[in-house]
């Protein structure tokens, strides 16, 4: 079925081959064979299998990018085995060398497979259905019968029945005529669209990984602002490979308030943050636009998305020093219990007023730590929380005095430096259970007052310039897939020749026609059986009807 033209280059390349191959030629042959091997359907299949297999540890083992503490713990608790797996990149599967190797190979294989198929497809667009095979009986689907009427009538009827098929009628050497018909060209279109969309999706996904970033920041829901003007404004920032953090799209949000509602069980029912934002021209004109930020509806502005991903409480404490001066601290505490929002934290007062001498400073720094319960229940002195809403807020605090060790650099904002406590440089100087408005006085006359509680929200900022393209390719992929799976490619041949048996007629021949129908499915072979049976029955019925009506014409 392949045309002669197609074979020529291959034959031409082979002919002048010298008996012994030059190294260049051998290298070329090697490359060619590798390429052929790589783009073979079987290789694609094996690579697909490897891809699936390679992804499995990504689901079974903890992964660095997803959960660092858990991964660390897994490695430590599995000894040399954990260390080995870590070396082999099993805890960061999707950036591992071996996983990348498989998908790069698959990618190359896909390209190599698509190029020739696209060319073939281009040719096929205009090609006529292939010649009728000499022996239709050897096809997987075949039927043969004899009907009254001329071959021409039979074929005319068949052509009529095969509307929508691409067909060509040819005269054959033995005097009979045949129709070659083919259907389902769109299937190949769908298949190519699918594979090209897959290609596009992979590229867009990879580019997205390079140019995207996410950042997280906690903002107090009391009118505080956050501006996306620099990486340092974030509490944490995860850039893609090609992001250096100097080219963030500027915008600002102001969090005015946060509301949550809960089921009686404490299960959250709805969260929403009342925010204002500005971006683009609004920045220079200082215009704020309101937005109701909810869990499933991020703010989309300036090419970024802002998500509400968490919330908690920030108790505010005011310290009145013995000299009468005050300092107010408002720091977010971290919810430890997800259903009751019992929170833990440390509000630090690193700069007592009027103290400039570093040595004295190291005596005078204060921290308020402990637990905060939005709906407190005391069991003796032990505080627990029974409900996440601010129904009966109370804090159970410890006051520490001494050296906070802040110059040690980056410290958790949720805890004091336990090392300083252990070394005695930071001492516990008081403890109390307080509700808002209550205060405790330390032995040196310092008063710590629990003023009030404010909610905070944790925002995630995501930037991914290619995600719209990924979606577009995903949709194309799906459409291509459906087309390709729904449409079946079928070939059908009808040969009609005069029959030898039967009584001879005046005009020559017997007036009867042998109709042979053959069918070949190019996809989903299994499904063609019943379809072929119905189709050939329909063709024959049409042929008989045609013969009858033309016979009617003859006699009148």
């Amino acid at each position, binding site marked *: 079925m392949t045309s002669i033209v197609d074979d020529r280059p291959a034959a031409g390349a082979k002919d002048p081959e010298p008996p012994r191959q030059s190294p260049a030629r051998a290298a070329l042959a090697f490359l060619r064979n590798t390429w052929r091997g790589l783009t073979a359907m*079987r290789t694609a*299949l094996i690579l*697909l299998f490897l891809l*699936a297999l390679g*992804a499995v540890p990504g689901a079974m083992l903890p992964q660095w990018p997803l959960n660092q503490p858990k991964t660390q713990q897994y490695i430590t608790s599995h000894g040399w085995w954990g260390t080995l797996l870590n070396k082999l990149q099993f805890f960061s599967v*999707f950036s591992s060398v071996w996983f990348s190797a498989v998908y790069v190979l698959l990618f190359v294989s896909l390209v190599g497979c698509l190029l020739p198929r696209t060319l073939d497809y281009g040719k096929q667009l205009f090609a006529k259905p292939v010649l009728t095979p000499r022996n239709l009986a050897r096809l997987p689907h075949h039927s043969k019968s004899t009907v009254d009427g001329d071959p021409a009538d039979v074929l005319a009827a068949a052509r009529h029945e095969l509307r929508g098929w691409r067909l060509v009628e040819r005269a054959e050497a033995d005097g009979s005529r045949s129709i070659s018909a083919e259907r389902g060209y769109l299937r190949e279109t769908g298949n190519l669209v699918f594979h090209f969309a897959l290609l596009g999706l992979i590229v867009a996904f990879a580019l997205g990984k390079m140019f995207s970033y996410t950042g997280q920041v906690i903002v107090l829901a009391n009118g505080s602002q956050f501006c996306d003007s620099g990486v340092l404004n974030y509490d944490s920032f995860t850039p893609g490979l090609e992001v250096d953090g100097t080219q963030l799209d500027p915008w600002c949000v102001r969090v005015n308030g946060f509301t949550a509602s809960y089921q009686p069980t404490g299960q959250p029912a709805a969260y929403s943050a009342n925010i204002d934002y500005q971006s683009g021209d609004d920045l220079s004109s200082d215009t704020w636009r309101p937005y109701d930020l909810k869990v499933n509806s991020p703010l989309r502005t300036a090419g970024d998305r802002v998500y509400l991903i968490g919330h908690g409480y920030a108790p505010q404490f005011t310290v009145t020093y013995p000299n009468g001066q005050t300092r107010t601290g408002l720091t977010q505490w971290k919810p430890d219990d997800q259903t009751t929002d019992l929170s833990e934290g440390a509000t630090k007062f690193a700069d007592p007023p009027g103290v400039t001498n570093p040595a004295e400073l190291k005596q005078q720094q204060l921290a308020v730590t402990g637990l905060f319960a939005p709906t407190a229940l005391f069991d003796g002195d032990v505080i627990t929380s029974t409900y996440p809403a601010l129904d009966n807020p109370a804090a159970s605090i410890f006051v520490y005095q001494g050296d906070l060790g802040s110059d040690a650099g980056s410290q958790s904002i949720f805890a004091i430096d336990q090392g300083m406590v252990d070394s005695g440089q930071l001492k516990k100087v008081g403890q109390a259970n307080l509700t808002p408005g209550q205060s405790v006085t330390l032995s040196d006359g310092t008063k710590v007052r629990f003023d009030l509680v404010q909610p905070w929200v944790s925002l995630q900022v*995501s930037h991914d310039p290619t995600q719209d393209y990924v979606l577009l390719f*995903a949709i194309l992929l799906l459409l291509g897939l459906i087309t390709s799976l729904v449409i079946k490619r079928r070939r059908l041949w009808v040969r009609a020749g005069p029959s030898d048996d039967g009584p001879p007629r005046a005009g020559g021949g017997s007036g009867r026609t042998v109709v042979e129908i053959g069918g*070949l499915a190019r996809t989903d072979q299994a499904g063609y*059986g019943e379809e072929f049976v119905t189709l050939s029955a329909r063709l024959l019925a049409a042929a008989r009807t045609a013969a009858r009506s033309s016979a009617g014409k003859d006699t009148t």
Partner: protein
Amino acid sequence: MSVNHTLAQYSNWAYTSAVAIYVLSMVFYLAEQAFGRRRATAAAPARQLVAAGAGGPAESTATPPAPPVSRPGERSMPERLGRMGIALTVLGVLVHLMSIVLRGLSVHRWPLGNMYEFMSFVCLIAMGAWLIMLRRFEIRRIGAFVLVPVVLLMFLGGTVLYTQAEPVVPALQSYWLVIHVTVVSTASGILLVPGVASLMYLLRNAHDRNPARFARLGPKLPGVDTLDRLAYRMTIFGFPLFTFGVICGAIWAESAWGRYWGWDPKETTAFVAWVVYAGYLHARATAGWRGGRAAVINVIGFAVMIFNLFFVNLVITGLHSYAGVG
């Protein structure tokens, strides 16, 4: 809105009844198998011929799938048993459907908010899909085998995974949840049937090659060509649906978690399943991989889907597991 506990209770009863009815219908199918030995053996040689031609580039004209032979008045006992099995399955599906509807009414939301509900829906779809295919293919004899995973999943769903009727957390309150979870569980349910069909294909194929293997069971299974066609037909329906479901999931994840894809365990396992099914379709177009090997791949795909339904939520914690066990 509060939960209507009366309706929730009725829903639970319906669920238990559905499981009981399924078990009963399984018994009927098995009884048909046990008593229908002779008839099935007589049919075997014809099927083997067809199977022999199946290895080539194109399969021989397949026997058109006649509806289950029915000549009123002269139905054999096994035949009657099998038909009663089907009637029971239909009843089971109706009661099962009622359980899901009542659950939704009791919590005033789409009844796909946790693993128990999810599993129940997957099983309903699997049984529904099987009943529909039963009209086109002569596959009643694998009824019991389709019911095995369904009954097992429903049993585990009703015990290990059971969750009180409750509203869902804010991240799950989205119409994308409705679309994503419904589509994915529909696809999972649909893909369950070809998984079983391919497994039966492997048994039958082994038996056809060497009649000593699966000597008792083999002759009672549908022919390899029927099983292969059934598996393929349902997979090419389930696979694009699954693809669509995953895309919806990505859209939902983008608006709920800040990224459309994050290699969360559930996502990763869905990816694995997707690639395996792509492999199945490829295998069916690759010389030498069509029959048995393709069936093996399809069974693996099914195993990965089940693994994703269960294990990932129960054992591995990821973002998705909060749609999990209460």
